[in-house]
Each structure stands twice: as structure tokens, then as C-alpha cells.
């Protein structure tokens, strides 16, 4: 993704007041270096961190390279250290289209038929397609009667939903169906399908769009310190990074 900015030297600045909790920042380009200045700690007491720096090539996740005040008196001295936790975590998104698949881990023989798919992310009244079940698999997976079919769903929990006939809207009674064995997939029919009217209030039917790449950095409490601390951020993209190799 960084090739969008290949050869360009860029910088930008931000200011904000910390909430004392982890926060994910979104930048306008793929940064090589980000410096957090905690102005509140600039002349703070010993043990505070006025400057914290993140480099793109920083290999250890959640670390933060910090400058710590060890003597706040006149002629203050500082120390550099590596905060091993709650530091920086790169969080760029790749853009594109979010996938709409869920892996089935259970199907009940009941009325209504309830499908278990952990963290399915679907909404009630969406239409899903069930695949990868049935007796045609090398090892029978059960629930032949629902395989390859599409159903309108009612979301019961974050991990379960029940099935309804797409046309009649009647609940599917799977009591007499072949017993579920294992696996299976549920695929959201489309991201934008609007069900028959009126859609329930909870149904979000945004038009399909292709998501842009986002340049994000998750910043932990080792950097964002105390609620109310005043911050400035400098964000840099190098025009060129030349690897001079090892001088050893």
C-alpha cells in the first residue's frame, strides 16, 4: 500500500488532549515515523515521558521508545527506555471489501432450525447461503436438506441465528432433517440486499462501497499517559529510505 506515496517526503501535525486510554489514530499517508510530544510532561516530575517515538520498521509490537524524565530540577536529565507493553501497534487497513463469511459449528434439529456460527456478524432479515454440508462430501456432514440453499435469518445472538424460508418467511423446521455432523459455511448473499418491506429498524442497508486503505496506528497508555495531558504529534513520511547495510 505504501507505493501510493513512493518517493514523496511528507509530514503532518496533530494536537489533542489525551483521554488516558488507548486510541487509534488515522493519518493521511503511510507514515515512517511518528513522534508524540506530551507537553504536560515537558517539565513534569521524574518518571514521566515527554517524548515517545514510533518507527515503521520497529519490529516489536506494542513497544514504544520513550524519553523519561529522571530529574525534573533545573538542568533536568533524561533517560531513554523501551516501554515493552501498551505502546504502538501498526493498524493499517488494506481496504477493499469486507468479507461476509461465517464458519458453521452447529445446526440444530429443531423448529426453528438454529445455526451456530461464532461471531457471524449478520443482521436479522439478511439472506444467507448455506454451503459445504450434506452427504456429497467425502465425509458426510449432515443437514443435506439445507445445503446450498438460501434462507432469511433471524439473529438470536452474536453466535447464532435461525432460518426462515425466503419466500414464505416461515421458520425452517429441521426436526426430521439429517443430523448435523460438522463444518459448513454461511455466506451473506450480498452486502446490500434490501429485504422485503418493511425492513426492521435494526437493518442497515448501505449501498455497497469499496473501502479505501486507511493508515492507522494504535497507541497505548504507555504513550497517552494521563487523561488531560496535552499532546502534539508529528507524522513523517520519508521521501527515500536508503539501506546502507551493515558497517560491521
Amino acid at each position, binding site marked *: 500500500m505504501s507505493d501510493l506515496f513512493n518517493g514523496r517526503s511528507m509530514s503532518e501535525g496533530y494536537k489533542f488532549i489525551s483521554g488516558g486510554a488507548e486510541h487509534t489514530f488515522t493519518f493521511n499517508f503511510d507514515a515512517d515515523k511518528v513522534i508524540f510530544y506530551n507537553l504536560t510532561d515537558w517539565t513534569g516530575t521524574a518518571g514521566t515521558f515527554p517524548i515517545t517515538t514510533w518507527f515503521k520498521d520497529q519490529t516489536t509490537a506494542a513497544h514504544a521508545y520513550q524519553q523519561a524524565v529522571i530529574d525534573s530540577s533545573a538542568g533536568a536529565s533524561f533517560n531513554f527506555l523501551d516501554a515493552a507493553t501498551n505502546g504502538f501497534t501498526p493498524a493499517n487497513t488494506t481496504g477493499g471489501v469486507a468479507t*461476509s463469511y461465517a464458519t458453521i459449528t452447529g445446526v440444530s434439529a429443531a423448529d426453528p432450525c438454529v445455526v451456530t456460527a461464532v461471531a457471524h456478524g449478520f443482521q436479522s432479515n439478511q*439472506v444467507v*447461503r448455506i*454451503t459445504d454440508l450434506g452427504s456429497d462430501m*467425502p465425509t458426510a456432514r449432515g443437514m443435506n436438506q439445507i445445503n446450498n440453499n438460501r434462507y432469511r435469518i433471524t439473529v438470536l445472538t452474536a453466535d447464532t441465528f435461525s432460518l426462515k424460508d425466503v*419466500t*414464505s418467511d416461515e421458520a425452517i423446521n429441521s426436526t426430521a432433517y439429517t443430523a448435523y455432523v460438522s463444518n459448513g459455511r454461511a455466506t451473506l*448473499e450480498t452486502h446490500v440486499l*434490501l429485504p422485503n418491506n418493511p425492513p426492521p429498524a435494526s437493518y442497515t442497508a448501505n*449501498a455497497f462501497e469499496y473501502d479505501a486503505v486507511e493508515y492507522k496506528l494504535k497507541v497505548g497508555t504507555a504513550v497517552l499517559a494521563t487523561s488531560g495531558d496535552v499532546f502534539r504529534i508529528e507524522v513523517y513520511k520519508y521521501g527515500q529510505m536508503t539501506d546502507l547495510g551493515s558497517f560491521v
Partner: protein
Amino acid sequence: MTVTTTATYGSMSNLWAHRALLQRPQHFNVHNLFGKKFSLPTKSTRTIGMRGQENFNSDPVVLSEDSDPTPEVVNKRDINVTVQEFGKVTLLSRTVLLVVEDDTANETADNLSQAMHTMLDKVTRGVWASSIPQISCLSGSNGNAITELTSKDLDRAISYLDENNTEKATPTIEGSSKFGTGPISASYWGVANIKLKRDIKALDSYMPTKEYGAQEAVLQAELGNTDEVRWVTSTLVNVSTDTAPQYSNTIIGANAYGYVTIDEVSTEIIMKPLGFNDYLNRFQAMGFTAWFNAEILDDSHIVTLLSTKAA
């Protein structure tokens, strides 16, 4: 402002410049091959709505003499697709245009055109990867949870399309009197990663394109035919990042997916001459914009057959 200068694109006047490398390798694109094209009128909106009706219940209804049957409500399904603008721009310095041989701008335009088509193809394949029903290859022997492509697995994918009354995407290619050739049945299109060529060739009844009864309808990237699928291969087919990568091979029937543009201005290569935005005529801009989006129209008619590669 990032400009292509002679520091990166300099003169070759000290060499006899051969143009061999200007034949750049190109991806095989499918975004406009197997899909239905839709176009929005200009000066209207960015979002197109498409409406279909669910089939009525066709269970036989015997009418009684003295009453009417219960009316059945028409069930609609709507798909909304918002066209988005994609684009890229590059700047050439006047020095490049003066110092480097004449065809720099022409080649850059060609390069941009290629980038545009590949970009739109990636959008289309992103849509495919997001919401096409998936069937796993499980009948192979390479030891992975998702196995290599086999005829049994392909049969299940074809059954999926057949069960959904999918129309074939290509007509029959008739046989001819040429020795070593044969007819090709009406088929679905199969789009597979180029790394699976050997796996496809190992499928039952594989026939390479050279043995088709007629060559007129053969696509540039077409590999051959197996029973009811004509295969094309491309480097752009989605591959997972698993240790044993999973390939999203997609079998496509008629009316399965579509792409939307805006009338007249759907894609444009735009060239601004020297001085388009500077006092001293020192920079030339070239780029493209494309108004585009894709969507699965009916997932009954398209299915992804997930496979790994044969051992």
C-alpha cells in the same frame, strides 16, 4: 509534488535504446468479460438500484369452487450499488520530455491504461471474494484441510449451479472435421489461479484449447475445458495467506455478477499539457479516472471452489 524527472527516467542517448522492455507483462483481466454492464446516466446519481422478485411458491394449488386462494405477496429483493471514482496520476518534467526519446508520454499513457484495467479488475475480484458462496475441495489427497482441485469437488460446484437453474455462460462449440479436435459443451466459465494449471489439466476429461473444434471463441487466457467448465487462468485470482495457500477458483454462470459505470465518462485517460498548473510550462500531468463498481447480482449463479495446490 512528486515529479518524474531525469533523475529517475533519464536519457538513453549514450546507448542504442532497444524497446523490447516496453512490452510489459499484463494480468489477464475479467471484470468486463463475464459480467453484465450497467450504466448510470450522467447528471443523475452515483447509486444504482436493482430490483428482482423472489420466485412464488409453486406448490400446486387446487382451487375450490366457492372461494379464491389466499393471495401470495410479491417478495422483492433490491441491490444498491454506489459507483466510486478510482484514479491515478503521474507528473512528467519538461526535461524528461525534452531529453528522453519521443515515446515517453505514449508509453506512460499505455502504462496508465493497464494500471486502470488491473485496478478495476481487483475491485471486481474483491467483490467476488467478499460474498460468493464457497464450496471446499475435500476429495484430494494433498493432506490439507482444503485439498487440491478434483473432479468430484468440481462436480459439487457444478451441481450447485445446476440446482439453482443457472444458465450456461458459453454456447456449444461445434466439432469440425479437423483431426484431433472435438466439440465443447455449453459451459460455465471457471477462473483459476495460474498456479493451478497442472491441477486443472489433471481433471477428468480435460481438453486443451488447441483441441477445440473451433478457435474463434477461445479467450487469450483460456486453458481448456473440463466437462461443463471452460477454464481461464490469471495471476489476479485471490490467494489466501495460509501456510498452504487457498485459491478462490470461481465458477461463473450467466447473469451472475455485474459492473456499473457512468455513461460516457466511465473511464478517462486525462493528459494535461506542459504548464497545466505552473508558470514556466515545466510539468505535464497524465492520469486516469474510472467510475466503477461491481456487485454479485445473484449468488445462485456463481460459486467459489476453494482449493489448495496438488502436492
